[in-house]
């Protein structure tokens, strides 16, 4: 996806300035390292707060106003609970997104390169979540924990935007990122996600921790299940809970019980309370199909998902249409 070009460029720049390049070039010579200035320069790009230009043209299609003033562990709609004794019930969508296989990077690159790569990937993830109205609750290693929804948003919309954000990001990791790393001899970089919806009566918001060692967070079975479902997901897969599925009407083709994939009936429910007759199903979410149905995505000649972006940066050139257009030789015979 061209929309992640600026993020990929940072990664490529980090890789091309990795010390392994210098060692190879300077056979028997003293090893030259990436200069501090070079590092700072890339780091500056990798940590820019604003979304990169290539993604900006896409985000204008989505139409959400991006809130850059978020703080980790402090959802703006529940900020008043910080260090208070109050609690509040409110629905929330929890998404746990995790990049897998990044330890493979240590086989090839120095720690500075990996630091820059990780930052760029995480920044791409954060920005994608922000574009779709997500709220970044926590960063953990290669993972991002995002809430979707809040006081001025319907449940349906929160679920929809969570699925949209995660599908776009998964597409990026599964295609752009993976292709590039493969070309660098690094295999098995992938992403896995778990998403669940907790209804208002099942979610308690409150302050957890003490003093400044605290965050405003949710106590909810469904937040815990989202994290658990992430480990049920297959490589580059998304697993969602039954309540997520219920918010998306007429879209049964997008969801299949996880047990269908594994062939193991035990994988059908992610959680059961026998004496309350509570059997909660987890589903594999067909994000590739979902993505291609979205209004902000175009489907190209061969069925690939292409983000619709206003190409402010590079004006479109008809010469790029020509290779496809010239396959056609029309004829007119109607009377």
């Amino acid at each position, binding site marked *: 996806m061209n929309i992640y070009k600026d993020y990929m460029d940072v990664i490529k720049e980090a890789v091309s300035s990795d010390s392994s390049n210098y060692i190879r070039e300077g056979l028997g010579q003293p090893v030259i390292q990436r200069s501090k200035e070079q590092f700072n320069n890339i780091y500056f790009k990798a940590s820019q707060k604003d979304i990169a230009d290539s993604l900006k043209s896409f985000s204008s299609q989505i139409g959400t106003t991006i809130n850059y003033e978020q703080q980790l562990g402090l959802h703006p709609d529940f900020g008043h609970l910080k260090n208070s004794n109050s609690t509040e019930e409110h629905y929330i969508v929890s998404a746990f997104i995790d990049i897998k296989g990044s330890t493979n990077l240590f086989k090839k690159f120095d720690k500075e390169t990996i630091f820059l790569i990780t930052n760029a990937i995480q920044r791409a993830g954060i920005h994608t979540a922000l574009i779709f109205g997500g709220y970044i609750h926590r960063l953990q290693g290669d993972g991002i924990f995002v809430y979707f929804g809040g006081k001025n948003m319907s449940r349906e919309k929160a679920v929809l935007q969570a699925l949209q954000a995660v599908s776009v990001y998964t597409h990026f990791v599964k295609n752009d990122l993976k292709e590039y790393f493969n070309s660098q001899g690094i295999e098995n970089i992938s992403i896995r996600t778990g998403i669940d919806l907790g209804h208002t009566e099942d979610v308690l918001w409150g302050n957890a921790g003490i003093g400044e060692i605290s965050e405003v967070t949710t106590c909810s079975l469904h937040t815990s299940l989202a994290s658990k479902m992430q480990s049920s997901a297959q490589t580059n897969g998304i697993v969602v809970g039954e309540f997520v599925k219920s918010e998306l009407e007429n879209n049964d083709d997008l969801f299949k019980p996880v047990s269908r994939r594994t062939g193991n009936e035990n994988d059908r429910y992610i959680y059961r309370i026998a004496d309350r007759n509570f059997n909660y199903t987890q589903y594999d979410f067909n994000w590739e199909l979902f993505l291609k149905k979205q209004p902000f995505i175009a489907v190209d000649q061969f069925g690939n998902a292409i983000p619709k972006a206003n190409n402010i940066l590079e004006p479109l050139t008809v010469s790029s249409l020509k290779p496809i257009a010239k396959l*056609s030789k029309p*004829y007119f015979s109607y009377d």
Partner: protein
Amino acid sequence: MTNSLLEKNINSFLNTYPKFKYYERPKKKCSILKGLIDICDVDGNYWDSFKIEIFIEKQKYPYCVPIVKETSTKIERIDEWHISEDGFCCLDIDHELEFMSKRGINIITFYQEKVYPFFTNVLYKMKNGKYANEEYMHHFDGVIQFYEERLKLNDVSVIIKILTSVKNNDIPGRNQFCVCGKEIKIKNCHLGTLGFLKSLPKDRIQRDLDGFNNLNN
């Protein structure tokens, strides 16, 4: 749906292009794929979309030529755009389409090779003033052009001889002299051309024959 190949192909079409919906229309001859065709260039940029309908003859599939209608009316309904007043699009010269249908089509391949390039070409012309490649001349002039370019035939009397033998199903064996009148074995002369024309419908051969005969009068 009784046509299981069609069912299978439609399912994979819808999976690949989920912006289309399938209408089976049990009582009608044709089922319809309705949806959006998004035009993206080879650099992965999105340009524009057209709303289209693809009519498929259920019983005949895969031996049929799907008919494509543009319903977003973004294309002006004049001959120059190869579209009829009702929005039906001339994807290619009938001869090529009929030849394809004789061999059997796959709706996905048809979409990728005929439908998608047609609309990309329309867009190209909208932006650039002319088609990317060429176009066939309109009406019978296009047929003459087709015989010349695709079949390498421009001598009308030779064309008439060949068409007549195809029409009468009177084609000698590979090692006999060719129907064009040259004293060369068919296999070294017009074998390919005869093979192509033989797979066209009888009424197409007749119409072409009439057309070329008219030129000679």
